[in-house]
């Protein structure tokens, strides 16, 4: 039969794949869909840890995460998309897709190399997934730096945050409920602000291509 560890590893796999998928796809709606999946995977991972420890708080946190990361934030992002607008596609990212995919691969290897000592500290099935979380952090950062559209940068930011959350849970086996909730709401706040900015941006400049902003300087 399939035990906790198997499920945890599968969830981890999905968690990483969605991150790669965000790099792979050009369509912003598709990226947001991937975010939903990733949120669910994150919740699943946390939930499994909770179940395994028999820790109710963790399970609750997992539920909260599912609602927030897979429900609320993607919905907020969707609202920022005007249907049919040309902004729905990430045309010509700074680093082209093939290259960024290879970069993602290298980042993952780097993550594995980085977390090797950490995992070695107490090699349990849970910490074994740690590299995946770190990899997602790195990939999120990569998206943040190499994508032009403001919205796909928000997506990158959310990747980053998911990664950090996962890292926290996997490394320390759970941070207090309050902290987690607080952090999540900060993130929500940031996303809302960014979304508002995006809308204002389109209203004033007409595009959300960050490079266009240079023109505002002079």
């Amino acid at each position: 039969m399939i035990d906790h560890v198997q499920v945890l590893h599968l969830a981890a796999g999905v968690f990483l794949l969605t991150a790669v998928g965000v790099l792979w796809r050009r369509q912003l709606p598709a990226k947001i869909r991937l975010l939903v999946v990733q949120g669910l995977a994150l919740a699943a991972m946390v939930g499994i840890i909770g179940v395994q420890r028999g820790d109710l708080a963790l399970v609750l946190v997992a539920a909260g995460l599912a609602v927030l990361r897979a429900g609320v934030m993607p919905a907020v992002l969707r609202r920022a998309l005007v249907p049919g607008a040309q902004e729905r596609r990430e045309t010509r990212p700074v680093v082209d897709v093939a290259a960024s995919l290879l970069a993602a691969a290298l980042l993952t290897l780097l993550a594995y190399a980085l977390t090797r000592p950490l995992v070695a500290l107490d090699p349990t099935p849970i910490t074994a997934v740690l590299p995946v979380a770190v990899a997602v952090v790195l990939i999120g950062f990569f998206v943040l730096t190499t994508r032009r559209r403001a919205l796909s940068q928000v997506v990158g930011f959310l990747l980053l945050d998911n990664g950090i959350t996962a890292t926290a849970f996997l490394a320390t086996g759970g941070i207090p409920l309050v902290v987690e909730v607080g952090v999540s709401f900060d993130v929500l706040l940031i996303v809302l602000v960014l979304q508002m900015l995006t809308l204002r941006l389109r209203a004033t400049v007409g595009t959300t291509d960050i490079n266009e902003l240079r023109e505002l300087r002079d």
Partner: protein
Amino acid sequence: MNILGWGLTAAVALAGLGTLAALVAPERVRPMLAGAATAGVGGAGLAAGVAAVAGVGYHARLPWLLPLFGVELVLDPLGGLFVAVAGGVSLVAAVYGIGYAARGHGNQSRSTQAVLPLFVLTLLLVPAAGSVSTLLVTWELMALTSLVLVLTDHRARPRVTHAGLWYAVMTHLGFVAILAGLVAFAAAAGGDTFEALRAARLSPALAAVVFGAALVGFGSKAGLVPLHVWLPRAHPEAPSQVSAMLSAAMVNLGVYGVVRVGLDLLGGGPAGWWLVVLGLGAASALYGILHAAMASDLKRLLAYSTVENMGLVFLAVGVAGLFHAHGEERLAAVALAAGLLHVVNHAGFKTVLFLTAGSVLRATGGRDLNALGGLSRRMPVTTGLFAFGALGAMALPPGNGFVSEWLLLQSLVHPPAGTGVVTAVVLPLAVAVVALTAGLAMATFVKALGVGFFARPRSHVPERAVESPPLMLAAVGVAAAACAGLAVAPTALGPALSRVTGDTLDVAPAVVGGALTVRLAGIASTISPVLILVALVAAVALTALLAQVVARRPARRRDAPLWDCGAGPPTPRMQYTATSFAEPLQRVFADVLAPETTVDTQHASPYLLARMRYQRRLPDRIEYWLYRPVLVAVNALSRSARALANGSVHRYLAYGFFGSIALLVALVVIP
């Protein structure tokens, strides 16, 4: 004095005779005599090498031959392998050269023919050197003789002089590196012979310096990126039989040097060294094959493919050193065996390829793939031989290159437990590099064969082609036969490889075993090239039979003109050229290759285009970014130096005077 002694003596004697003959003989018979002598040298070397690999030891000391240290000759299995390869290649190439030079191709000049035997001799003596001084002397002799050979056609084509200049500079920089490294080593070891060096215990820092210097020096000879720039210039410009010797025999000695110094004399060393070797190897493999895939000059393409194959060998050596450093002797041995087997295989198919390319050059006077084509009708045998060599170079079964790449991959895909994160990250990447290299090599040789030999003539160049004389064909045929032997029965080399790896890194022998199927020590995977071949043949027969059975009354085959979409017969210019064939790959790898394209259009009127010119250049980027600044700086320096010399005798005398005065003053001042 055993067989090895006799072999080497014979080689020396024959080389001397050949040189003499070439100097005195009239031009008519000169290639014949020199070629025969050279072939003899090669044959003697082959015999000696085989004997040495078979386990016959040899050690000779000739104190009177060189001042100070004397000459020390030692032939162990490792050296023997390289001597055998060099000997075999030279034997074939020399015989081919007799026919090649027969009908005026500029290379029957006295100098070339006289130097040829000496060059081959040095190829044999470098791996047989048993002491630092001997190695350095033979190495330098090899560099000089090969330089003369590269410069053969310098009167006919100015590019040759340019290539020779690059070669001279690079090879001597390399020599300086080797000199510095080995002399420091010898000084620290307090002895000149290899035994003394083996016995020596160096401080880690010094060891690293020695290894680094050796890697630079020997690596430059093997065309290791970024020291490869001379290779794709010099190898194609030499006469084709010399190109074969350079590309199939001389480059190997770079590998020999690194293995000898790194694994044998220094006895391994930290993993860091070998990661560097591995990285450089991977870079060379990819960079070389990428440029080969883009090249449209047949011989330049082959030269770049040499860079690629040497890169693969260095990758294997790096992996071997890495595992050795981690104490994984068994895998290290497999990796090293893979590298050495690839040296042999590469020598085989590269000889075939360069010699057939020479036949094409001789028959058509051209080597630009964009102008060739349709040779398979005019030179069927040569085409068949080239196809055979290409199969080996593509590393596809049932070619001979496949076996060694299989060995290499086997050494990579069985990661030992607990050799640290570095291995865990490096091995998959190494596999990816090998795979991509293999894929691109396939594209490269499909292009070379399909565009150059098949299809229809793209210009008048191939139209006057005629098949080469029997002697040349026979020579290439022998090389091809050797490749076939390596392809179907690689296990015949098993004991030899096991012996070499056994005493290079001290592990139990029998790394590569088995009779029909290749078996590796401690690895479950097996293949059997010969049975694959048999199965393929059987399958072809079965298919033909099947086709007959299904079509009960098969219709008669008929010839028809090419399908031209109804609009008249297509002209040869409508065919894909080598350049257009490589275009998709060039786009995919544009970030690495950074091609320069210029499109200039002339308008007859705002609406009408008079003429349009599209030009694409693919300069060697490394050369562009790494070497050009240096060259510029050197030029500036020399220009400023010229100001000192304005031709007035007084000034020169003044320089001398003040110089000596300054010296004397210094002597007085310094106690």
